[in-house]
């Protein structure tokens, strides 16, 4: 905004005022005319309500009929339009798309043509033709597209799919999801559509003029009659009544359209603790019945047999996949983006079904054909999928409510969860009043409140900043351990995987690359992919000479146990981790190299060196020594830590 308004501003402002005058002056004229004795004489002739009385006696019925038709039309479009819009958003196929296309046509086809078509087709049914229902039909056809489009727009803009999946993971069936999640979240769109439909119906003239009979006159038809009678005062008074009817509707429309933000209520505890809103959750404070049984109490073993997934578009997101998870175990699925982690998790959850050969077992039960809402899983979504139409406490209670748990035990369970996650002070907040970390806790609380057989977490920490991620990682770890719940945790962050997993499943493009404990994965990677994906790995490339590997910068004795064979052309590749090498005094190491760069990391220094093979090597040292570029160093490698890896 400019401080001093420019010429341009004033010119535009004047222009806008002129346009406004063009639109509003006649409105004012009509208001004046409707209230004065004589239009030609103007206000001097005196003010009167005479014309209103006349309008009331002459045209009262049209007003009632218009309201009746508009209300019925609204009800019908709601009943027809909202479910249809939902179906069209959910199910994108040829038919729904065709219908969506068709729905635009009533906007393109003039009302007159629609009316003519209705008369030609149904005019023969005299009873129908002469009743107001006939007009209603026209209005429904005319307004239905507005309702459907408004609802579709809102359903597409809120992340409906996530909310629904969230509700389904908590056990809500189709209708529960529809009425408790879909409708409340689509409410702004439904409201906007309703106002639109009502206003359009009240003012509809093109269709109505053709469809009306002397017995069924609506307000605009009456207006046309009154204008034709050439008595400006009566026409004006009647028009004022029309204005009075639509003004509240227009105000309501503006109010609905305005984006609103809930106020961020700062509670006292909040303001006091300042930025440290998140207090660590104490794992010990979880409900006693769970604590005692140790690890194997609430979990179920899980088995995937031959679960492949091919999407309709032919994408092979998962090759046949086998996995066994013990009860109470935490398994981390780790892999680069797009390798099929989410797909795998969704198959376990029941949000996707595997290709026909695949089976999913919870314990001994084959749950492949059981929908998610019957599987009793807890799910934490990457974007949390918390219901914005409910408070924190209501969100946590939702799964319990769906399961028909009575109010008293439900409240107790909810407050247990709130205590456990240390979010009691937030219980009455709405979701958009929470920080990322708080949302994360609510999502966790909601998922475990139902005591799921399996807890599924899809990159639950990626939306958070690094510091908070570390904090919550520790918390989730102690939580999972103390609950003894079977958990599948998806991530692409290797440190998260190392910290949390009893076992890690490393995935690479739709397949398992390796399964093992964090230590196994780290120290005994079976492929180069795994070695490179987890941590840093260095490569030595050289030739075998007796029991030594010789490479440009030096040589190293091979461990006796390792059966290293030379590949074609006698080349051998061996790998080692940075921490298995050290910078040593000259003459004591295995290779000479030159420093390329060094990074001081606080507790250690990471040195990048070159000279011994095609690649740079990364070495870590603990000392306080600093390094310069070009400096000569000597490196000793622990021969026992050398790895041979298939590429």
């Amino acid at each position, binding site marked *: *905004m400019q401080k001093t308004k420019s010429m341009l*501003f004033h010119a*535009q402002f004047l222009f*806008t*005022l002129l*346009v*406004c005058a063009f*639109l*509003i002056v*006649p*409105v004012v*004229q*009509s208001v004046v005319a409707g209230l004065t004795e004589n239009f030609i004489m103007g206000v001097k002739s005196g003010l009167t309500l005479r014309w209103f009385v006349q309008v009331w006696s002459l045209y009262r019925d049209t007003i009632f009929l218009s309201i009746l038709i508009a209300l019925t039309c609204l009800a019908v479009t709601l009943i*027809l339009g909202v*479910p*249809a819009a*939902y*179906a*069209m958003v*959910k*199910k994108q196929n040829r038919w*729904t798309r065709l*219908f969506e296309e068709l729905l*635009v*046509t*009533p*906007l*393109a*086809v*003039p009302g*007159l*043509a*629609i009316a*003519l*078509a209705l008369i*030609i087709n*149904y005019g023969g049914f005299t009873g129908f033709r002469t009743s107001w229902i006939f007009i209603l039909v026209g209005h*429904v056809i005319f307004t*239905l597209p*507005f309702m*459907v*489009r408004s609802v579709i*727009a809102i359903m597409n803009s809120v992340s409906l799919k996530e909310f629904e999946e969230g509700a389904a993971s908590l056990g809500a069936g*189709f209708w529960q999801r529809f009425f408790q999640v879909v409708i409340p979240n689509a409410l702004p769109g439904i409201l906007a559509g309703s106002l639109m439909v009502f206003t359009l119906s009240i*003012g509809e*003239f*093109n269709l109505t*003029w*053709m469809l009306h009979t002397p017995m069924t006159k609506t307000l*605009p038809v009456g*207006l*046309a009659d009154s*204008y034709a009678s050439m008595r*400006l005062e009566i*026409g004006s008074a009647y*028009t004022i009544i029309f204005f009075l009817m639509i*003004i509240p*509707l*227009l105000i309501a429309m*503006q109010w609905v359209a305005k984006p609103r933000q809930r106020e961020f209520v700062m509670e006292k505890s909040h303001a006091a603790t300042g930025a440290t809103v998140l207090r660590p959750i104490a794992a010990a404070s979880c409900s006693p019945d769970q604590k005692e049984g140790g690890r194997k109490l609430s979990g179920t073993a899980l088995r995937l047999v031959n679960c492949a997934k091919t999407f309709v578009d032919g994408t092979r997101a998962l090759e046949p996949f086998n996995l066994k998870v013990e009860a109470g175990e935490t398994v981390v699925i780790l892999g680069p983006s797009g390798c099929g982690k989410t797909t795998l998790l969704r198959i376990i959850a029941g949000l996707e079904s595997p290709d026909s050969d695949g089976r999913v077992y919870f314990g001994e039960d084959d749950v492949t054909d059981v929908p998610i809402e019957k599987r009793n899983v807890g799910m934490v979504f990457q974007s949390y999928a918390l219901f914005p139409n409910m408070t924190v406490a209501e969100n946590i209670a939702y799964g319990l409510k769906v399961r028909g748990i009575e109010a008293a035990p439900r409240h107790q369970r909810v407050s247990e969860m709130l205590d456990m996650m240390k979010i009691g002070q937030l219980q009455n907040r709405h979701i958009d009043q929470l920080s990322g970390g708080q949302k994360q806790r609510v999502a966790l609380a909601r998922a475990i409140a139902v005591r799921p057989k399996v807890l599924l977490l899809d990159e639950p920490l990626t939306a958070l900043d690094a510091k908070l991620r570390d904090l919550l990682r520790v918390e989730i770890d102690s939580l999972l351990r103390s609950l003894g719940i079977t958990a599948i945790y998806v991530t692409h962050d290797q440190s998260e995987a190392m910290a949390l997993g009893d076992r890690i499943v490393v995935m690479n493009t739709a397949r398992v690359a390796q399964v093992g404990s964090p230590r196994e994965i780290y120290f005994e990677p079976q492929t180069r992919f795994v070695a490179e994906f987890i941590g840093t790995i260095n490569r030595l490339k050289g030739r075998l000479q007796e029991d030594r590997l010789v490479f440009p910068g030096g040589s190293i004795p091979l461990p006796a146990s390792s059966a290293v064979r030379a590949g074609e052309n006698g080349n051998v590749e061996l790998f080692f981790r940075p921490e298995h090498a050290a910078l040593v005094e000259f003459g004591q190491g295995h290779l000479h190299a030159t420093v390329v760069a060094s990074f001081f990391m606080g507790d250690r220094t990471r040195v990048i060196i070159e000279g011994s093979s095609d690649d740079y090597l990364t070495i870590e040292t603990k000392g306080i020594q600093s390094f310069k570029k070009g400096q000569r160093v000597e490196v000793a490698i622990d021969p026992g830590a050398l790895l041979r890896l298939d590429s």
Partner: protein
Amino acid sequence: MQKRNNWLLLALFAPAFAVFVAFFLLPLARLAFASAMGPSGFKIYLAAITTPRYLETLVYTILLSAGVTLVTLVISGIVGVFLTRNEFRGKSLLVSMLTFPLAFPGVVVGFMIILLVGRQGLMGDITKLLTGEKLVLAYSMAGLFLGYLYFSIPRTITTIMASAEKIDRSLEEAARSLGASPWRVVKDVLIPALVPGLISSGAICFATSMGAFGTAFTLATNIDVLPILIYTEFTLIANIAMAAALSIVLGLITWMALSVARAAAGNSVAAAG
């Protein structure tokens, strides 16, 4: 569960579809059928676009609607962008006044025009004071033009304001930081960003003008527009076949305008309606 859900979704979808077919598609098909059921069969379409009276009306209506669309876009473009880009006191009142006529049916718009430029209208009084001649526009092409402007401007302003609000402010700031003058910013950033919105609201404006009936009906002008012609063919002359044929011609023109705009502006046209 996939299967069961599909059935449930179908059940949700079916009622609306059935109503739509029964009360829109079927009657429209009958209308098309009825147009060809007259004595001249399909030749009636030839008659509809060659008979001078019909042709003249058709051309008038198209020219009128196109002209209205153009003027509306210019006016609403200026006003809409001005309103989104500037904050001043009384702005929300101004916006409410500009969008108030949004909900007026055509008849009321016609009445507003009569009050403004009719026989006893304000314009007449003013011109009489100034020149001694009473200027009456309401019952001519000019009156229709004003009437169509009256109902088009509020709608178009709202859609243009909505699309102007979506334009990334930093684009303009970037252009300014690179030294572009205000006019250059308008030409190089603002208008290109607004084009889809302009096309779609223009198409809707054109389509509504083509089909507008109430305004012309109230003004009872000496120039027929297509909807009035259809109406008189149907009710006064009872030439149902011709009325049907003309409706279909009218429907095709508006439908075509919307489709072309949709193709040109992406998918947003229908949504703007």
